[in-house]
């Protein structure tokens, strides 16, 4: 038996060969990926955040209709997506960016990273959304709302909170968990909601009271909702009030092993903050035409109807029916809080820093 | 195959290890490279094998300059001190290593391994794990490993160094017999005078990186080149006298009944007894006796010196290297 018959040696030699093959393949793929500089692009690349989702049939419908492969690059939250787009402004990673929300909208427009585009579908949107800035197209809106654990309040014989003001009452001591606005998008929305409600700097007083009343701050929504909030199914959490979305109760029903008749949680209509999510054509896109087709598609009935089930946000197109669990268990807040994008952009960093001083330090 | 080192210098980190070393070994000749530790004898071996590049000089094999040829293409066999067997291979794997890397056909390899193991007296040990071998067995495997490719020159670095007693003697005898049978060209490094004399047709004495003397064992014993060499060979009757020194070989000192001296030491080594006597004039002499009845310490005796055993040699003024560093066991 020679040494080369040893499994380890054979393995190592083979691994070495595979490694080199992978190199070659990687470079070849890269070269092939952009070899045809002048020819017609065959794909369109969407750059978006972690929460983006689309069901497979809808994605395939777009690919069939447009003849383009839809490649999706996702990572980070809305803020990070915008920052990456700003970093590569003019030489973008993809063709369309989706997920810019009000809190970063003015930075996106000032950052000169988007081409103007007015989709013909805009006319079909609900009146609230039909007249956006020329650089962006609204695609959905989400509502950041307080969620409560119905069961907990029923069994503890405590009335559920119904307003922001309630949260500083003694009977809700140590019951609330929120996300850090410095690191979380719903966390920031909730901070903005309190600014919209109590004014600047009135919100500071409110948060001091929240702190005194035992609010818990965690880094992100995952931690807050699935680990700290007692109402999420399977959660080890002990706090019955959390900052989440208006649609979360519907999700609890849709994703339950055996869907219950009533949702175990409920959204609180007061204090909801509206986040509109926009898409835009990236300046310098390889496939501008495909980018416009994709944006048109995102406003189509088919995509809009898919939005609640995939991303748990609400469509902006008029007359798109909501899935049944949304109608039964979720709310669409009638009068959500909102701040002007410019005000948010001008003050966001200062508010977050101030909030950190008041609540965390 | 004949071997020559021509004017070899080796300087490592600015320190001269070998200084103008020239040696010649004829085909079928066995040269013992004798010297105390640090004299550069192992380095000379490494230069020959190609493991150490000389700073200057040439290594010549059968008239061809091989100085620039890497070790794996020199065709020289080397047996390391402590054997240096490959721990992950069994005996056959070690011995068969050379044929394998030379891509010899399987059948030929196996035959060679068997043959080499027979040669060193380890027939049938092919499947033994080398970590379970005794010191002597390990050294024999190392020897078989070096011999299996029938090298033109065989180099041995202290092959008996780690062994003791009868085992050492037996391997020494076996080696001599083997070298003669195979008519091998051998360079054999040792610090042991007895081993050098037993295995070398000629002995080269190395001192502080230079060759002090090259001669047959008989010549070396009869006419050491200087007082240092005489002392290194184990002679104690060395009396410096200006630029010259007088050496009396111990076998030329006879102990006869009478007076004029007293026995101060008597060390038996088998049949041989080394006596040290102090003459009344204060001079000490060493004598070698054979047999059972010898004087004891404190006995008074007379001393005679056979003039044939008297040699006048030069005095070495080389400095640092002490002959007594590594005198024979």
């Amino acid at each position, binding site marked *: 038996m020679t*040494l*080369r018959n*040893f499994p*380890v*040696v054979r*393995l*190592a*030699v083979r*691994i*070495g060969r*595979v*490694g080199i093959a992978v190199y070659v*393949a*990687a*470079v070849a*793929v*890269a070269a092939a*990926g952009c070899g045809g500089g002048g020819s017609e692009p065959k794909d369109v690349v969407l750059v978006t955040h972690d929460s*983006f*989702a689309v*069901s*497979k049939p809808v994605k395939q419908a777009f690919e069939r209709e447009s003849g383009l492969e839809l*490649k*999706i690059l996702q*990572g*980070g939250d809305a803020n990070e997506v915008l*920052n*990456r787009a*700003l*970093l590569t402004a003019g*030489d973008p990673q993809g063709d369309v960016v989706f997920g810019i929300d009000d809190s970063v909208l003015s930075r996106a427009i000032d950052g000169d990273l988007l081409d103007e585009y007015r989709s013909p579908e805009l006319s079909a949107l609900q009146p609230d959304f039909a007249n956006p800035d020329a650089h962006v197209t609204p695609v959905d809106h989400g509502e950041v709302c307080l969620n409560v654990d119905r069961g907990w309040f029923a069994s503890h014989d405590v009335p559920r909170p119904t307003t922001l003001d309630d949260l500083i009452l003694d009977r809700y001591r140590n019951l609330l968990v929120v996300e850090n606005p*410095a*690191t979380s998008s719903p966390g920031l929305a909730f901070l903005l909601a309190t600014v919209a409600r109590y004014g600047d700097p009135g919100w500071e007083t409110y948060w001091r009271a929240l702190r005194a009343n035992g609010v818990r701050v*965690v*880094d992100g929504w995952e931690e807050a909702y699935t*680990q700290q909030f007692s109402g*999420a*199914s*399977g*959660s080890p959490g002990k706090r019955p009030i959390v900052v989440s979305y208006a649609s*979360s109760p519907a999700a*609890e029903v849709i*994703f339950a092993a*055996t869907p219950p008749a009533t949702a175990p949680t409920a959204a609180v209509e007061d204090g909801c903050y509206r986040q509109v999510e926009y898409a835009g054509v990236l300046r310098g896109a390889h496939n501008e035409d495909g980018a416009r087709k994709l944006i048109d598609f995102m406003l189509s009935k088919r995509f809009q109807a898919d939005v609640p089930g995939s991303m748990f946000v609400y469509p902006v197109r008029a007359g798109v029916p909501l899935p049944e669990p949304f109608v039964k268990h979720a709310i669409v807040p009638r009068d959500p809080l909102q701040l002007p994008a410019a005000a948010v952009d001008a003050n966001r960093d200062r508010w977050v820093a101030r909030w*950190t001083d008041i609540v965390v330090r | 195959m004949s071997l020559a080192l021509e004017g070899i210098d080796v300087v490592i980190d600015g320190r001269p290890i070998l200084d103008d070393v020239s040696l010649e070994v004829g085909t079928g000749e066995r040269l013992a490279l004798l010297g105390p530790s640090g004299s550069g004898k192992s380095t000379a071996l490494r230069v020959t094998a*190609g493991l150490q590049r000389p700073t200057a000089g040439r290594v010549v094999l059968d008239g061809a300059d091989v100085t620039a040829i*890497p070790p*794996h293409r020199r*065709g020289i066999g*080397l047996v*390391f001190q402590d054997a*240096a067997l490959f721990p*992950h291979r*069994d005996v056959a794997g070690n011995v068969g*290593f*050379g044929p*394998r*890397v030379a891509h010899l056909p399987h059948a030929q390899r196996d035959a060679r391994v068997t043959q080499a193991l027979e040669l060193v007296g380890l027939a049938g040990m092919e499947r033994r*794990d080398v*970590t379970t071998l005794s010191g002597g067995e390990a050294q024999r495997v190392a020897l078989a490993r070096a011999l299996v490719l029938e090298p033109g020159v065989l180099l041995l670095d202290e092959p008996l160094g780690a062994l003791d007693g009868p085992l050492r003697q037996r391997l020494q005898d076996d080696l001599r017999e083997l070298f003669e049978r195979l008519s091998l060209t051998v360079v054999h490094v040792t610090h042991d005078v007895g081993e050098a004399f037993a295995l070398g047709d000629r002995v080269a004495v190395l001192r502080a990186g230079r060759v002090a003397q090259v001669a047959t064992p008989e010549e070396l014993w009869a006419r050491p080149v200087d007082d240092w060499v005489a002392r290194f060979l184990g002679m104690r009757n060395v009396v410096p006298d200006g630029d010259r020194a007088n050496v009396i070989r111990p076998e030329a000192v006879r102990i006869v009944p009478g007076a004029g001296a007293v026995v101060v030491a008597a060390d038996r080594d088998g049949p041989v007894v080394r006596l040290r006597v102090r003459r009344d004039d204060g001079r000490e002499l060493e004598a070698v006796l054979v047999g059972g009845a010898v004087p004891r310490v404190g006995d008074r005796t007379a001393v005679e010196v056979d003039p044939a055993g008297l040699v006048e040699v030069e005095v070495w003024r080389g400095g640092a290297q002490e002959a007594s560093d590594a005198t024979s066991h």
Partner: protein
Amino acid sequence: MDRHRRALSAAGRAAAVVLPVAFLAVFFAWPLGAILERSLLVDGRLDVPFDVLTDPTTRDVVWFTLWQATVSTTLTLAAGLPLAWALSRFRFPGRSVVEALVLVPFVLPTVVVATAFAALLPDGVERSVWAILLAHVFFNVAVVVRVVGAFWAGLDQRLWEAAATLGASPGDRRLRLTVPLLAPALASAASIVFLFCFTSFGVILILGGPRYATLETEIYNEAARLFDLRTAAALGLLQLAAVAAAVLVAGRLERRLGGARRRGDAARRPVGGERVAVGVVVLGSLALLALPPVALVLRSLQVGTGYGVDHFTSLVQETPALLVAPWHAVLNSLLFSAAATAIALAVGIPAAVAVASGRRGLDVALMLPLGASAALLGFGFLLAFDDPPLDLRSSPAIVPLAQALVALPFVVRSLVPALRAVDARLREAAAVLGATPAQVRREIELPLLARPLAVAAGLAFAVSLGEFGATVFVVRADWPTVPVAIFRFLGRPGEDNVGTAMALCVVLMALVAAVALASERALVRGRPR
């Protein structure tokens, strides 16, 4: 023919250096340079952000980073050494299983481990520096067990026997013999663990809560969230310098302490009191290591108020959370990790050879990717790989490359001490017997290094499987890996999503354990006898 061969072996020697250097240059130095240029060059002039470096906030962050990394490393060594001892010195039933299980924590995505810890720890401890330290120990204990254990197994048992006959008490022997002999491996393991803790990200964010910030979390914050590239770059350079210094110190320690002669695997059955000691150490360590994974397994089986395998069956179903069914993520992960392991070995083996033969600069350079902020490097990728032939920004090929960059230091770290410990005379003996340098490498070094190589491959595979920070930055939505899929599921409300995430965690754990076990088995079968 001869000249041809010599040219080849010279080319081989050159490749040992060129390949790793080229890899680092293209996939590390270039993107990093691109982002630094963008951040610190203002109108063609260097804007040195001294103000950031002297800021008191920076000082606090640096202090906390150093402090937690040092304490975590010390605790990890203390926790890992007994197990390394038991696994490397003794043979007992299930030893290879235990060795494989130890790797599992190492590959779990941070978010999963942090979640498991948060669920296990009592309320007060949950969001404290203790939680951070504990999680770091849990994560990194595998490094100590693997790196130190592989070295320990090769040490000559007779040294202890000699010490015993010289009158050394067991305590003496540990202090005066074991520790100095193990020192190279200890330095090696400690430097990896230190770097890991120093650059820790997810654990700090989730378990530390918003109060604790390390350099890595600050860089991420400044770059990805606040888009203050100047501050991020300044902190990034600071972190890189600190990591380079730590690597240099560790390398110096490792060299000064030297390697002990190896004599194959010296493990034996424990006898007498040793049996109790080994039993306590192995079972105790297992119990602690198993706690979080067991919690995950239970959680993955929890359906409504009862138990079932529903979350596992949903792995084959389409889901709105991903563009593909979850089991595709498992395939992707295996594929990417295999490729990443192959690249890491292909680059790492020659690199380790070069490092072991004295190219210390390369050693430091190879460790640096561990010290670079993933956020900065990710930004650098976006800037650098935008042109043919390396337009990798939307190519799946970039994933194994990024993972290999992270796995590379592990390969080199586990190979270098073993390479240094290979007796030089064995190489010489082989050379004199006619083996070319390549044959020496293949026939002598490789088999002697089989165990450390398996360790290296296992670690590389595990690291690639669990890698999240870099992967999520570059992976395409239709090619998710398991950690990325877990992250996507955890990011969505509803029992099914959480359950599927937990099921994927369990699959990931099983995968790593299986791979580690298989490589261990192949190794045992590969031994002569």
